[in-house]
Every structure is written in structure tokens, then in C-alpha cells.
């Protein structure tokens, strides 16, 4: 099977400080990859490189075998902080419609076809009834789901999430996790997250990034912790990763 996303020998430095060193990563269709690691370890930088926000300095990122920059509309992106600009007068459906990539010039407003597509995207995330509401009137979790609908608008092959639950309450987080799990049945999902319950319950692969990358998938086959009841801390997981690392990885 060919990987849908392939990162080859990728290194990146801000001025003189190396942030990523010789990263190699393959992501296959319908994978659910969680990227974890300490702050400043390079998680967001990798995300920005995949999205084309940061320029690749050395190495390569390929989507379906071609340069990722040609395939930006195949990547849906959900940013970290969705609580920005909540005063902004914009309807939920308009936020979703931002997802389009067409270079065509539009006259005022949106075509019926696009409105329909926006409604479908909202339906997928369970926000159908909110199309005409002001985005600021929604809760954090609801707004996050709208951002997911926006990312789904172009029918992407890969969905990238940057800390999808960092700015919402616990009840909202649960719904988001469920949604992510459902989505991952059809789309490749990559999540950068501090929240370990998502990593342990839903992810099929875990990549730990701290300048270099270590990939684990055995970890999840012999889950030792029940995350349904307890939220546990990062130290524990890193410990766990350290152990399974010895058992299952050759590195």
C-alpha cells in the first residue's frame, strides 16, 4: 500500500536553532495518527510544514507521491484556537464556505450549490440547525465542530488538527473525540494533541516528536490503562511510551 502522506528526511531550523531533525513518517489511508511531544518539540512546526505555512528547508513532504504544495486542497486544517474574533458578524454557514479553494471571482453572495455543500458539511459534524446563527453565539465546542465542517468543505483526504480540544470544556471534548473517530473511518486523521485520552483511545499510531520523531503503533495493541474514567498525566504516558519503545521499536 502506498502512503498518502510521506515525510522524507525532513529537517527544519528557526535561524540557528534546529527544531526538527531528519524526520521520516509515513501515513496511510484511514490512519489515525496522534502527534505528541513536549512544547517546543516541533509538533506545530511539522504541521506548518505540511500545510505549506513554513517553507521546507531540507527533505521533502509528499502527498500521494507529489509535492504537498500542489495538494493543499486535499488537506483539511482545523486550527488550535477557535475562540478568536467571536464578535465578528459572520454566520456559521459563511465560516464553512471559507473552506473553498476556487480562484473564480464571485459576485456578492454564494451559489446555491455551495450553500448546499456547506449544509452537508455542517450536517456531518452535527451542526445542521446552526447554519444561520452568528458564530459568536455558539459554544466553544460547537464552534470547533464548525471549523471541522469548514475543513471538510473541500472533501479532503487528510484532516489535520492542532490541539482540537485545548479551548473547549470537557463535555464538548467528548463530542469532538466521537466525531474524530467517526471521521477517521473515511478520512486520514492527524491530530497534534496534549490530551492523552484521545491518543490512547482512538489513535492507531502515535508519533512522539522532540526534535526527532519516534513512531509507535504497538502501544495501542496492548493498552494498559483504562482512559474512560481517569484522565492521566503526560508523564505516565511518556513512561509508557518509553517502555513499549524498548519492546517494539528497533530504534
Amino acid at each position, binding site marked *: 500500500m502506498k502512503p498518502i502522506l510521506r515525510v522524507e528526511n525532513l529537517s527544519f531550523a528557526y535561524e540557528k536553532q534546529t527544531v526538527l531533525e531528519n524526520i521520516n513518517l509515513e501515513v496511510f489511508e484511514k490512519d489515525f495518527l496522534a502527534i505528541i511531544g513536549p512544547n517546543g518539540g516541533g509538533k506545530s512546526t511539522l504541521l506548518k510544514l505540511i500545510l*505549506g*505555512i513554513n517553507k521546507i528547508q531540507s527533505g521533502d513532504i509528499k502527498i500521494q507521491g507529489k509535492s504537498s504544495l500542489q495538494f493543499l486542497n486535499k488537506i483539511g486544517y482545523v486550527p488550535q484556537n477557535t475562540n*478568536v474574533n467571536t464578535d*465578528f*458578524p*459572520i454566520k456559521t454557514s459563511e465560516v464553512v464556505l*471559507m473552506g473553498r479553494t476556487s*480562484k473564480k471571482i464571485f459576485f456578492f453572495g454564494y451559489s446555491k450549490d455551495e450553500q448546499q455543500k456547506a449544509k452537508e458539511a455542517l450536517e456531518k459534524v452535527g451542526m445542521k440547525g446552526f447554519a*444561520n446563527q452568528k458564530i459568536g453565539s455558539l459554544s466553544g465546542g460547537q464552534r470547533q465542530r464548525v471549523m471541522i465542517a469548514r475543513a471538510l468543505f473541500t472533501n479532503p483526504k487528510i484532516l489535520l488538527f492542532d490541539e482540537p480540544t485545548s479551548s473547549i470544556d470537557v463535555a464538548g471534548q467528548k463530542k469532538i473525540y466521537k466525531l474524530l473517530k467517526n471521521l477517521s473511518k473515511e478520512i486520514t486523521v492527524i491530530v497534534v494533541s496534549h490530551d492523552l485520552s484521545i491518543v490512547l483511545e482512538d489513535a492507531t499510531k502515535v508519533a512522539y516528536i522532540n526534535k526527532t520523531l519516534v513512531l509507535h503503533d504497538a502501544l495501542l495493541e496492548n493498552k494498559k490503562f483504562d482512559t474512560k474514567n481517569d484522565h492521566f498525566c503526560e508523564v505516565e504516558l511518556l513512561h509508557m511510551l518509553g517502555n513499549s519503545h524498548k519492546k517494539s521499536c528497533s530504534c
Partner: protein
Amino acid sequence: MLDALSYGFMQNALIASVLISIIAGIIGSLVVVNRMVFLAGGIAHTSYGGIGMAIYFGIPIYLGASLFAVGAALLLSFISLKQKNKMDTFIGLIWAAVGMAIGVIFVDLTPGYNVDLLSYLFGSILAVSRDDLYFISILLVVIILTLTLWYRDILAVSYDSEYAALRGVPVKFFYTFILVLCALSVVVAIKIVGLILVIALLTMPIYIAQKLSSTLAGMMLYSSALSLLFTLVGLALSYTYNLTSGASIILVAAFFLVVFLLIEFLHHR
């Protein structure tokens, strides 16, 4: 009161009020949602340098003011895209030095007594000429055309510029373009409320409109309607009681804003 309408200058003033209210409503909305209010203030004051030079060299005032304002807009756009941390310094520089100081010095250097000075600071809607009206109309047409063609892109850039950039919208271009339109709008708005009060016209009606509307287009419509209301009421007061027009308009706007805030406060309690 109605007999005032038979005067040519009063007719011009009314037409200008309508046109400028629409401009202020649209551009004010963009300025507020893009958090450019302070930038607009800098641009307004910089344009005074252009007014001073125009008076000295005897070129049309609008031309001088527009050149300075657009120059300031381009500079501020460049800085905010490249060196955001130096923004305050640069706004201070163009606001005080390039703008006001150059303006005042050139007016000093101009031979003869200059009566017009105050009118640029506080507006002189009763002195709107036919040429002014042409200039204002062209600007309004450009603004409406821009919105018709690129409403979605402008909305995307204003709401979430990072995401818009990801989707291939030329964010820097639109940011700069909005600032240039803002500069030209500030120049025409100076005509009715003066450069000291222009920021008030670009923000007070907009604040109310933002609360009332759920879309950017709606906000622009409400803002324009409110600006027009404030301008006409202010103008009527100014005519009736022989008051400075710009100050009257802004006081009317401030009055309505305070009433609105009170209603909002009581409503939420």
C-alpha cells in the same frame, strides 16, 4: 428649515452626507473588524501633512491629502506585515511628525492669512463643491465594485486571515487594499467631520451596527444607515443653532451610542 434646501451649498451638503455616510459605513465596518482603528487614526492625521503642502503649493487639497494618506496606508501595511512590533513607533511618527507637524509648518510658510485651517480639523460640509462630489462618488463606486467582486475574499481575510492564506487568498494584497480604501475614505470624511473627528464617524455607528447584525454585509448596511441618520440630524442642528457641523454630527452619534449602550446594559441585567 426646509427653505435651507433651496441653497445650492445645502443641496451639495446633503448629497455629500448621503455618499459619505455609505462610505463610512462600509469602510468603518472593515476598519473595525480588521482592528485597524488606530491605523486609520494615523492615516487621518498624516493626511494633514498633505493638506498643508497642498495649500502651500497651490494644488488641489484632495490630491495632497490623498497622496499622503495613501502613502501612509502603504507604509503601515508594509510595517504591519513585516515588523509588527514597531507598529506603535511608526504610527506615532507619521501621526505627529509627518502629519500634523509638516501640515502646520507648511501652512505657516504659506503667505497670507489662512482661514481654512480649522475647517480641515473639524470639517466643513457646507463648503462641499461639485468637484468634491465627483471625487466622493468615484470613491463610492470603487468601493462598491470591490465588494461586489471580492466580498468573500475580504470576508475571509477579515475573519480569519491565517486560514484565508491557507486557502490561497492573497491576504497581504487585500489587507493593503482595505487600508488604501480606508485612507481615501478618511480623506473624504475629513470634509464633513474633519480629521480630528473622523475616527469617531468610522467607529461609533459601527459599534452599534456590529451588535445588530449577523453578517458583515448587514453590518455595513446598518452602519451606513446610522451614519446617515447621525449626519442628517447633526447637520439640522448645526444649521438651526449655528454650530460647527462636524462637532454637531459627532455629538449626535455619541448621544445615540450612549443611549444604545444604556439599553444594552439594562437589557442584559
